């Protein structure tokens, strides 16, 4: 029965004219992972657009999103977070076990796997890869993940297919660390590593045959400024239930298309097959003639990203920024921040900025993060009157012309900086400007080039307020540590605190550290709920809204199940295939 099904697919592929080579079925002794998906058929090229070229193909040093997006399709990790279920699942690891104290991970690898050049894979590659990630000289952005309790994770080969990882202290959801840590081919990279040339390995100029991984695709061609072409990895270690080796697609092409509008035009023209990170306006535009063009649009609900307004509460003594330092007296006043938060019309932000496809936020955890959101934190309704009451009780008053002044008679006037390339955040700034005008605050909106903005927020502290966004990576609280620990690298409102500046920041520090070493989900949730409540009560950020994840794809793409975690559209690229004929849904065939 199985065999026949397979044969049928083959015939179909030939008859519809796909000139595709069919990969070898799994061999004996090869521990392939059986992927539970609808049985597809081989052939076809999937074309997607990317904002810019990848900077590198080296998974250990890549830090930018375009590079990571391409590399993610070339490489594989030991344990992977399933983007649909948001749970971790075995990948190159066949299984893993955790010691009772939560510190020792023993990972069993799949047998008989091969890199995309045919070279066998074993524990030596794993040990080598983790050596790369932990090497201080290489400066991998993932290095921080592998430092737990101040010490790097120890990696030890037990036998050819077993590796042991030892952590200095127990760590919650430690298996999630492995997601995205690509396993590298020792047989190709050990030499450059020993010669100290690893950081220069695998650039865009490297010959495609030398870029080797364990992912569903391998590098075929790179055309500078235009595209990067990947082809099927014939040794990929996943197969469907009929023992068809994945991926189904022959090729995956990343086109470099500068901006979202250009991407929409290319998608409308049929040049690309999938478009992700759509704005709500473009989503509406595409939906007008979606059925004529044979495309399907997906609204996956709110993303995990949170947009917020932040006031500059940094220490400015060492900086020559007296004007801003004087205004910090307002920003430091909780009632001032609460008043601002109360005046912001979040419903309108969702309506006008996201065309209704988004959700208002009062905390850092998006409502779509079902495992972690604390649904008890208050969602106070917008009220200009209550906001004015708060300001009055904090010693502010109003001039005859309506201008808000503090107790020294100083007019409340400040500017909000926002990235000039992000229209949505600029729109939020313009709406907030109008909202705060109703409180008598004189607000200026200053669009800044994104790097100049980052420089002001992270380095010079030369700003008064800014609209920014964080989150969107993983659903787990651990990646948020950096934002909430008082010495964290993205503790934006007050960077580089030697010790917590306030009691509540000290409390958050304790709670976050506690949840990090706590292994029980229920306990962790309880701790993280408290963090969310403290944040909501002290308003270090004025949370605004989160956009829905909006995606478009050709209707004839089978197994297409976009998810809210990155990479939203391509996370299951190995399962994607082209339906025969005009792309009617599978049930109708």
């Amino acid at each position, binding site marked *: 029965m199985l065999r026949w099904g397979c044969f049928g697919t083959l015939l179909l592929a030939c008859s519809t004219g796909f000139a595709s080579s069919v990969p070898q079925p799994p061999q004996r002794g090869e521990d392939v992972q059986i992927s539970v998906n609808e049985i597809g058929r081989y052939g076809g090229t999937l074309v997607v657009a990317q904002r810019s070229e990848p900077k590198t193909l080296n998974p250990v040093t890549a830090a930018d999103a375009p590079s990571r997006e391409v590399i993610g399709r070339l490489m594989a990790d030991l344990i992977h977070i399933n983007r649909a279920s948001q749970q971790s699942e075995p990948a190159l690891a066949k299984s893993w076990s955790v010691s009772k104290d939560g510190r020792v991970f023993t990972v069993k690898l799949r047998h008989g796997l091969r890199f995309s050049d045919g070279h066998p894979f074993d524990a030596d590659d794993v040990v080598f890869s983790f050596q790369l990630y932990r090497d201080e000289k290489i400066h991998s952005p993932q290095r921080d993940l592998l430092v737990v309790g101040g010490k790097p994770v120890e990696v030890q080969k037990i036998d050819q297919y077993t590796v042991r990882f030892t952590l200095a202290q127990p760590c919650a959801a430690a298996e999630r660390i492995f997601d995205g840590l690509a396993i590298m081919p020792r047989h190709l990279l050990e030499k450059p590593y020993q010669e100290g040339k690893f950081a220069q390995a695998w650039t865009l100029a490297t010959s495609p045959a030398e870029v080797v991984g364990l992912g569903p695709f391998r590098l075929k061609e790179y055309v500078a400024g235009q595209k990067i072409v990947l082809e099927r990895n014939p040794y990929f270690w996943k197969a469907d239930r009929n023992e068809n080796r994945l991926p189904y697609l022959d090729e995956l092409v990343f086109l470099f298309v500068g901006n979202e*509008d250009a991407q929409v035009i290319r998608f409308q023209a049929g040049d690309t097959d999938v478009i992700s990170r759509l704005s709500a306006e473009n989503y509406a535009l595409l939906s007008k003639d979606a059925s004529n063009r044979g495309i399907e649009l997906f609204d996956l609900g709110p993303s995990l990203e949170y947009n917020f307004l932040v006031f500059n509460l940094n220490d400015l003594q060492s900086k020559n920024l007296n004007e801003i330092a004087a205004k910090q007296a307002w920003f430091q006043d909780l009632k001032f921040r609460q008043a601002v938060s109360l005046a912001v019309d979040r419903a309108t932000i969702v309506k*006008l900025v996201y065309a209704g496809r988004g959700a208002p936020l009062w905390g850092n955890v998006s409502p779509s993060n079902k495992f972690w959101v604390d649904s008890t934190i208050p969602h106070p309704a917008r009220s200009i009157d209550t906001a004015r009451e708060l300001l009055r009780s904090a010693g502010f008053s109003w001039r005859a012309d309506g201008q808000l002044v503090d107790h020294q008679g100083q007019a409340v006037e400040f500017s909000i900086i926002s990235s000039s390339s992000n*229209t949505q955040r600029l729109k939020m700034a313009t709406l907030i400007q109008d909202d705060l005008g109703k409180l008598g605050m004189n607000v200026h909106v200053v669009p800044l080039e994104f790097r100049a903005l980052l420089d002001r927020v992270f380095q010079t502290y030369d700003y008064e307020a800014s609209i920014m966004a964080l989150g969107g990576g993983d659903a787990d609280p651990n990646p948020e540590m950096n934002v909430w620990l008082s010495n964290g690298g993205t503790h934006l409102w007050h960077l580089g605190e030697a010790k917590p500046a306030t009691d509540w920041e000290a409390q958050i520090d304790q709670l976050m550290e506690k949840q990090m070493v706590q292994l029980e989900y229920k306990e962790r949730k309880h701790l993280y709920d408290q963090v969310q409540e403290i944040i909501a009560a002290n308003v270090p950020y004025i949370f605004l809204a989160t956009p829905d994840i909006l995606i478009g794809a050709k209707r004839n793409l089978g197994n297409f199940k976009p998810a809210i975690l990155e990479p939203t559209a391509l996370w299951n690229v190995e399962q994607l295939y082209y339906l025969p004929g005009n792309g009617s849904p599978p049930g109708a065939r």
Partner: protein
Amino acid sequence: MNRNRKIVLALILLVFSHLAILFAGFVSPYDPRTQNRDFPFAPPTRIHFVDARGHFHLQPFIYPWVGRPGGLNEYEESREREHPVHLLVRGSEYRIAGLFASHVHLFGVDSAQIFIAGTDEYGRDQFSRILYGGQISVAAGLLATGISLFFGLLIGSLSGFYGKWIDESAMRLAELFLVLPWLYLLLAVRTFLPLHISPTETFFLLVAVIGSIGWARPARLVRGVVLSAKNRKYITASRGFGASDFHILRRHVLPHTYGILLTQAALLVPQYVVAEVTLSFFGLGLSEPQPSWGSLLANLQHYNVMVSYWWMFAPAAALVLVSLGYLGVANAFQQQLQLDSI
């Protein structure tokens, strides 16, 4: 006859557009910064004479927009009742030229809103924004022209009158300015300016930058006229009577340049208006919520706005009309000058 008609047409166009812009507060029905958050991207309100029951009304009226449920920025007319368009209605307070405060607007409707050029993404009345935006764009054009002509006249006349090294150095400098790619220069200059400056300061900086780049052309033209005028016999005579350089320049030489200056002015104003529009279009002009034609047009940078909301092109129509007016007048001046010189 035909030529005269063209001039009159151009002049009427200019006078009307400038009056409307100058009295923007009076002509526009609303404050340009007021957001009507329930009406983003509402199309222009239709003005009716015949109601839903087929009755003719002498006084024009409107049916207000209501959002179509489920649609994104889609509207339909609410035909429950007619809202007649009144002249001289009371509305939000405004000031004309920063001096006279008033509440009276040229037109408006009761208990509904009229958007004769539609609304933008925040539901702000596009017509009001075009008029107020014109104040910035046209004033920037006029002021910058003044600056250019002032420097052009000064440098051109000195250079033509005294010649020698003054002439050499001034004209080489002028050539340098002529070959400068002005757009990139403007962009570069703007990025060096501080970001935290008030709208008024931004405006004057813009004007100064735009105006000080364009002096070279008028300077060369003025120099040519001065050169040909200074060797006339009556100037030698005047010198013989002991007239000073300044007197000769003012009384005998410069009057020859006025025709050229006027033509240049009529040519430069639309050019500079477009320069301001370009800078604002790239986000380097005045910041929100202050409108200018450039920042109004900047919305069209978004593909979905360009293809979905045609009324967002309205500021471009205003720009074209004003430019046409000026160019028509410049054309007329030029022809007159040619007639004079025959």
